[in-house]
Every structure is written in structure tokens, then in C-alpha cells.
């Protein structure tokens, strides 16, 4: 698999306002097994996400996609195997320290803090990296990227529509300029127009900032449209690991594991 050529120069309109934006990092899962006892949730999963690539993590409900992402963020313990981020084994590194190192996750269900305003949610996402004026301009960068949010700065999280919540969750994750972004089902329950908008933003982040993305999706068509590479999970095991183009065209594989 070939890494995308990356350009570290942050372009206008990607939400990057700070100088020296970080380029994407690599993420490697090496023989990852999660859950003890009879039926592990993940079994010997090895996935490589090269710098600046979008890798789609596909599979049915219950295939282990969410568990895999939660394990990478240390929300779920590893039974055996390694998670390597930019050449560093993350064993023993806590959730918040993984985030600070540049490993961001947008969990399933959009995870907006309902009691905080849009502005506060964004500042919360950015304040581990920026303070003061730089934080304010990073927040403005997200508003440039997601204009509907700019009109709702003072609205509480619970007042937002599903699409606005997903934009906010994504904006909040990228505001600190992560090096690897983990996304769990961003398209869930959203109108096709909003899904297209979110996928376009992911593509722009990859193209313009070299962001590395691991995208768990049930919406195979949308995911493969932006992905460079696709990994198919079935019952906790990797059953296919191919360039996205192959997965788009191989109807037998699609039919067997992706249901269409």
C-alpha cells in the first residue's frame, strides 16, 4: 500500500490557522487481540494506516469496528498485540495522553457535550494545544470550514441537529491538529447531503494537510469514495485488506462481506 504524497502546508479553508500545522502520522496495529475468554471481540488484527492516507474500516454491525477504535484510544484494554503510533508503542499510554500526542477520535454518536455551547465544545477540543488568541483563531478556522456552526456559536450542544452535531464533533477533533484521526460512523443517521459534506472535508484534510484517517463506516459507498484503502472486518477478524479501488469493483467480495 502506498502512502499519499503529503503536503504539510496548511491551505486556507481547512481550519488550520496556526503556523506549523502537524502533518499526518502512521498508525499500525500489530496482532491486536481484544477481550479475554471464549470469543475475543478482535482476533489477531493487523492494520497499517500510512501517513496521509484515508483507510476505511468496513464491516457489519458487531464486526468489531467500534471496539477497534476504542482500543486504539485506550478506552478498551488490549489482551495481546501492539498499537504503534509513529513508531512508538502506545502500551501503557493513557487515553488523554494519546489524544495529546495527536491521536484524535470522534466516537460514535457524535459525542457533543450537550451542556456546553458550540463555542465551548470547540475551545475544549483546542485548548490542549492552543491558548488565548491562537485558540480563538483556531475556533474561527472551524467556523470557516463548517459555516452552519458559525451561526450557532452560542447554542447548547443539545439544541443542535444531527448534522450540526457531527460537524461540531469533527471540528472539535481536528481543531488541535491531530496527526491521526479516528472516526466512528460519522454518516450514521445523517442526510446524504451532510454525509457528502463531511466526506469532502475529510478528503480536503487529507489532501491539504496530510491528515491520516481511519474511518469506520457501515456506509460503504461513501467511505470507499474517499478512502485510499479499505479493511473489512468480520466477527473480529480482518477478512480483506485492499486498495479502495479493488473493493469498489470486486463484486464477489462486496457481496460476501459488505452486503451489496
Amino acid at each position, binding site marked *: 500500500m502506498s502512502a499519499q504524497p503529503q503536503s504539510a502546508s496548511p491551505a486556507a479553508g481547512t481550519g488550520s490557522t496556526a503556523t506549523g500545522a502537524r502533518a499526518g502520522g502512521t498508525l499500525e496495529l500489530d496482532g491486536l487481540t481484544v477481550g479475554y475468554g471464549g470469543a475475543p471481540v478482535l482476533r489477531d488484527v493487523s492494520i497499517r494506516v500510512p501517513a496521509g492516507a484515508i483507510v476505511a474500516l468496513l464491516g457489519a454491525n458487531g464486526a468489531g469496528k467500534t471496539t477497534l477504535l476504542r482500543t486504539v*484510544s485506550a*478506552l478498551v484494554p488490549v489482551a495481546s498485540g501492539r498499537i504503534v503510533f509513529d513508531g512508538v508503542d502506545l502500551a501503557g499510554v*493513557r*487515553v*488523554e*495522553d494519546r*489524544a*495529546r500526542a495527536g491521536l*484524535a*477520535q470522534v*466516537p460514535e454518536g457524535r*459525542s457533543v*457535550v*450537550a*451542556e*456546553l455551547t458550540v463555542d*465551548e465544545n470547540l*475551545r*475544549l*477540543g483546542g*485548548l*490542549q494545544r492552543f*491558548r488565548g488568541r491562537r485558540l480563538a483563531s483556531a475556533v474561527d478556522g472551524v467556523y470557516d470550514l463548517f459555516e452552519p456552526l458559525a451561526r450557532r456559536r452560542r447554542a447548547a450542544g*443539545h439544541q443542535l441537529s444531527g448534522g450540526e452535531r457531527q460537524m461540531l464533533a469533527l471540528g*472539535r*477533533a481536528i481543531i*488541535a491538529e491531530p496527526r491521526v484521526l479516528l472516526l466512528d460512523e460519522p454518516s450514521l443517521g445523517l442526510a446524504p447531503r451532510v454525509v457528502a459534506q463531511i466526506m469532502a472535508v475529510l478528503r480536503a484534510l487529507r489532501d491539504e494537510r496530510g491528515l491520516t484517517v481511519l474511518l469506520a463506516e457501515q456506509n460503504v459507498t461513501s467511505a470507499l469514495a474517499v478512502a485510499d484503502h479499505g479493511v473489512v472486518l468480520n466477527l473480529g477478524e480482518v477478512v480483506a485488506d485492499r486498495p479502495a479501488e479493488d473493493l469498489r469493483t470486486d463484486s464477489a467480495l462486496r457481496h460476501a462481506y459488505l452486503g451489496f
Partner: protein
Amino acid sequence: MDRLLFLLATGLARGAIFALFALSLVLIWRAARVVNFAQGAMAVVATYVAFAVTGLTGSYWIGLASALVAGGLMGLIVERGVMRFASHASPLSGVIIAIGVVMVLQSLLGIAFGPNARPMEAPFPETPIVLGGVPVLSPYDLFVLVVAIGLMGLLALIFTRTSLGLQLRASAFAPEVSRLLGVRVARMVTAGWVLASAVGALAALLLVPTELGLNPHSADMLFVSAFTVAVVGGLDSPPGALVGGLVVGVLISLVTGYLGATVAPIAVLGLLVAVLLVRPGGLFAATEARTA
């Protein structure tokens, strides 16, 4: 009529102390989802420190500062030392540990200082100022009101205008999401305990000079009243603590003034029961009912 004005004014001053102490319960509830039954005993320890420091230095103000520091330290020690290890599976475990802390602290205070009440002097006179022939409230009551309002304003600023406040709120509402954003949630829980315990210590320090004196049980009734306040206002709601504190303060003052001091605790418990029956989430409950 004159009497009513006086009772209302002193009730507000007393209520401001209840509000502060209730606020300390609310802050810990929000940070750690524990009703800290040890808050009273912790605050009394800090008040003893103030008492000792004032005795040594002769300065009420150095004593006050040391109560804040001692209160914060108590919060740090109790959270890091025991509360952190409470199981979250049942809300009871935190409560039982807190009651254990109360027993330990009150016994230690009893051993160190004895059970007798020690008079504590207020920094200002406690006789009411008379305005146009009507006694209104004492300079000390005024001082209490100013300190309480000032501290609440400061806390509101910290929570709404600073990065620390934003992280404290986020950690309380959504700990997992906050961790995913790099917030050191465990540290925020500790910070919440330190802040809350300093506030509770100040409340006890303000109250004791208006009572019989300082002894290991000085804050027992304060805790009961403030717990009522927190429940009346809603354990999740700082504005609820403020309004609830004033309501309970005025209620106690009126009942004491018109019916006698022995009736006051019954009135407080009656209010607690009434609110629990009618609005179990508290009058200011926002989104969800309490789980404890």
C-alpha cells in the same frame, strides 16, 4: 414589621453561608458524582486550623487564609487518599467511605482539642446596626454576605470564563469525551474537590462565630441544612444552591424568630421531605434526575 425585616436580613446572611456550603456539595457532586457526607467534618478541621493560626498570630485574616488552604488540602487528601478508590458501581460506597472519614476526623479532633466548644470571635461586631430605629443586620452579617457573594461571583467567573472552568465542567458532564480530547479528567476531579473543600471550609469559618463555639460537631447542623439546600436546589445546579441557600436561611430565621429555635430543624427537614416528594430532582433540576 421591624422584627420581620430583621429576621429576613439575618436569614439572608445565614442563608448565604448555607448557599456556600451547599455549593461545595454541588461542586463535588458534579465533579465526582458523590454526595460528600464528610464535607462538614473536613470544614471543621479547616476551621480548627484557622482557630489555631488566629490564636498564634492574633490575626483573623491570616486565620481565614489558612482555613482556605487547609480546606483545599483536606479536599486533596480525602480525594487522593480514599475517595478515588470508591467503587462507582453503587453510589452507596462513596457515601459510606465519607461517613468513615467523618468518624475518623471527628475522633481525631476530639483527641486533639477535646469536646468543649471554644468561643471564636468574629472580626466585626455582631450587634445589629439600627437604621431609623429599626435593627437591620450586624456588621458581621454584612461581612458574611459580601464574602459569600464575592466568592460566588469568583466561582462563576472561574467556571464560565477560564480554561480550567471549561475543563472542570466538561469533565463533569462527559468524562470519556473529555479524556478523548486530552483533558486530564482525574486531575479535574481532584481540582473540583480542592475548590469545593476550600469553599466549604470558608462557609464553616463564617458560621462558627455566630454559633455557640467551635467543637468537632460544629458543622453537623450546617451539613444537614446545606444538604437540604443542595437537594432543594438540585444537586447539579450551582444557581439552585444559591437560591436554595437563601430560602433555607430565611426559613430557619423566620421559624426561629416566630416559633422558637427548637422548631427550626423540623422545618428544614419538612422542607427536604416536601421537595423530595414533589420534585425529587430538585427545584432547579435540568436534564436528568439524580441517581443517588
